């Protein structure tokens, strides 16, 4: 069975500082890895995905994620956080269907 762990319920960061939202997974082989973001009263929106190739994946809104096979991690990063990045972030993993993590609330303070 595949599983995803997002160990932090909430991440707080000041605007302009770098941010990291952590994700680790448990699934055999080389699954597809995704990050989605959910703003209040909106559906989940696709941010980026890792299929194969370069371990650093770039996505929407300046976000990127680093795939680390040995640590089975896929952490989301951004060099300089914006207040407007405040939202709920979901990591997901799978082959045929996706298994989502429980989400991490990112709060960026002015």
């Amino acid at each position, binding site marked *: 069975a595949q599983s*995803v762990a997002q160990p932090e*319920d909430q991440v707080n960061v000041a605007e302009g500082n770098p941010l990291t939202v952590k994700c680790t997974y448990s699934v055999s082989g080389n*699954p*597809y890895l*995704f990050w*989605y973001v959910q703003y209040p*009263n*909106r*559906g*989940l*929106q*696709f941010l980026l*995905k890792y*299929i194969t190739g370069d371990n650093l994946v770039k996505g929407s809104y300046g976000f990127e994620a680093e795939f680390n096979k040995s640590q089975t991690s896929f952490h989301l990063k951004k060099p300089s956080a914006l207040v407007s990045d405040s939202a709920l972030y*979901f990591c997901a*993993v*799978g*082959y*045929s*269907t*996706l*298994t*989502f*993590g*429980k*989400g991490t609330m990112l709060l960026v303070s002015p």
Partner: protein
Amino acid sequence: DAMVIQNPRYQVTQFGKPVTLSCSQTLNHNVMYWYQQKSSQAPKLLFHYYDKDFNNEADTPDNFQSRRPNTSFCFLDIRSPGLGDAAMYLCATSTRQGALSEQYFGPGTRLTVT
């Protein structure tokens, strides 16, 4: 704009009273998904359609059914809602089956069971 629409956004039903949630899409995607998301938990896949082919997750309760009369519409029927079925229900679409394609989500329907 092409999108995934869910109606209603908020639904209140009584314990044991059947309820139907609807999802429509203008993206013309082949695959439609229904997820259940309880408070502070991960979205959990209930089932999905690839065209007319229905795929039920092994642990989805029999109380949950789905219909897809055409490409654009998909319905979630809860035959006898219990208090434990109160949740946000998310509809999503993708261009093809399999996790390779990103999914496009609707805003969700929040179901309350009284």
